[in-house]
């Protein structure tokens, strides 16, 4: 079972929800694997403090041109949608940072002058945190494209476990790569104009992808019903609330798990899990 945690707006509490939900499920005796797909800025390890047992480079294929065979006909240059190949006089040059690794130029070159080599874009590291399986990706600094690395992280999801997928913020390609195969998406928001505006964008995206979903309101304040009003209007269900509490902010700042540091939070995660369970089975 794949449960993704996403948000639209950054900093609403995706990592807090996903790491603590993983811990909660682990303590319940479930087989859990936490997968941090926020490969640009992965933070889950700061809270789960895993023992990393394996690390391997994630690579994408990029073209290499054999100058002796290439007659600079330009077929590859005309084909490449990403402008990763440019002809300069009698030579074709490759710009690896623009290449998406589709392999088209290699297949289409009439002189068979193009082969592929691999380019490292980051690392996938995995290990354990107590009983929780841990996987994250770390994108190399300066690398623009995260989806290929996200797909490598997700290859380590396992059918036998509950996979908790910590998605990056936003609503574009990296998020879609992270949540595409989720059985359920938890959208974490906060009851502010920014939080709810970006929740709206995330809902537009998720409804396009047709994945079952529910809302967690973080930093919920008593007396503030903005999130309830918004969710009613969009006809989506709030499945749990986490109160606005300075103790939570402070324990988060130190890298502590709120499940153990803040009394009374456990019940919120129990409630969240009951609600997910019900909707995934239905």
């Amino acid at each position: 079972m794949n449960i993704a945690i996403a948000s639209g707006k950054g900093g609403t509490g995706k990592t807090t929800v996903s790491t603590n939900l993983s811990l909660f499920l682990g303590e319940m005796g479930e087989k859990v694997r936490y997968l941090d797909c926020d490969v640009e800025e992965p933070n889950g390890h700061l809270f789960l403090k895993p023992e990393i047992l394996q690390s391997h480079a994630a690579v994408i294929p990029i073209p290499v041109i054999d100058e002796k065979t290439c007659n600079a006909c330009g077929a590859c240059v005309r084909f490449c949608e990403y402008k990763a190949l440019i002809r300069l006089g009698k030579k074709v040059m490759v710009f690896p940072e623009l290449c998406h690794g589709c392999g088209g130029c290699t297949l289409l070159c009439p002189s068979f002058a193009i082969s592929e080599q691999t380019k490292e874009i980051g690392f996938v590291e995995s290990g354990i945190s107590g009983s929780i399986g841990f996987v994250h990706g770390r994108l190399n600094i300066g690398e623009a494209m995260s989806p290929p690395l996200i797909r490598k992280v997700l290859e380590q999801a396992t059918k036998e476990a509950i996979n908790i997928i910590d998605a990056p913020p936003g609503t574009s390609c990296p998020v879609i790569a992270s949540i595409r195969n989720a059985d359920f998406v938890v959208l974490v928001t906060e009851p502010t104009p920014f939080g709810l505006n970006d929740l709206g964008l995330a809902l537009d995206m998720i409804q396009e992808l047709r994945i079952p979903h529910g809302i967690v309101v973080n930093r919920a304040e008593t007396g503030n019903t903005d999130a309830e009003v918004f969710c009613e209007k969009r006809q989506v269900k709030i499945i749990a609330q986490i109160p606005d509490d300075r103790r939570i902010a402070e324990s988060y700042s130190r890298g502590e798990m709120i499940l153990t540091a803040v009394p009374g939070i456990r019940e919120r995660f129990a409630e969240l899990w009951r609600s997910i369970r019900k909707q995934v089975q239905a």
Partner: protein
Amino acid sequence: MKEIVIISGKGGTGKTSIAASFAALANGNAVMADCDVDAADLHLILKPEIGLRSEFRSGHKAAIRPENCIGCGKCAEVCRFGAVRDGTTWVAYPGVTYSIDPIACEGCGVCVSLCPARTIDFPEEICGEWYVSTTRFGTMVHAKLGIAAENSGKLVTLVRSEAKRLAQEQEADYVLIDGSPGIGCPVIASLTAANLALIVTEPTVSGDHDLRRIVSLTKQLRVPAMVCVNKWDINIAATEMIKDFAQSQGIGFAGLVRYDKAVTQAQRKLETVTEFCSEGVAVDIQSIWNAVTKAIWQYDT
């Protein structure tokens, strides 16, 4: 004219609240650019009146014309993005087994070029809209990326270059760029060749971790950077560590912003912090603006 990018690595550290206040403090001497195109919020506070609305066209998506598909499966064989659905998972049309999942399609065109029946179309995509607008503090360029659309980096580049052009035309001193979280494609597009990056961080383990990665990126791109710490009093020890880190990296320290409910209250009233109040946190932001605008003319970029 100088381009200031407000950026953070970690999301939700207060980029947009600070960018909006900067717009108020620059008061007419800046053009604003919201480069967080897939989760834009600056417009909620600046309330732009849209003057010019344009389509953002970029890239292509494959689409199989089912009537001529011979079902050979070449497209599925060559696609590296898992975007070709076969009949076992999805049936598009009676008797035809292959179709393209537009969300997974990367727009590379390999299938289009290699289809023996030449039955794959490759129309240009409309990936969103962008706008040139008027606000109470001056001109603003912003955008909305289409639902599940790609090419956010190109849209950022477009918004930024348009803002720069308008700033030159208006002889404004600054372009204020509200960036997106992360270190990937839209962030690189908003940072490249900017005059100064103001990194907004928070005194948490995540804020500190992500700060280090975004600082490395600014160094790699050779963009001068300054750091400010939002909600600094949440964890004073962590704030000190961030200050030390900035110093060790030779990065300017722009100041501290206290934890203050006024920031959220201002946002709920859809006002900038500096309009909402004139004390406390508003003074903190004013002094960061002073530090940034003083430093930027000293960098030789």
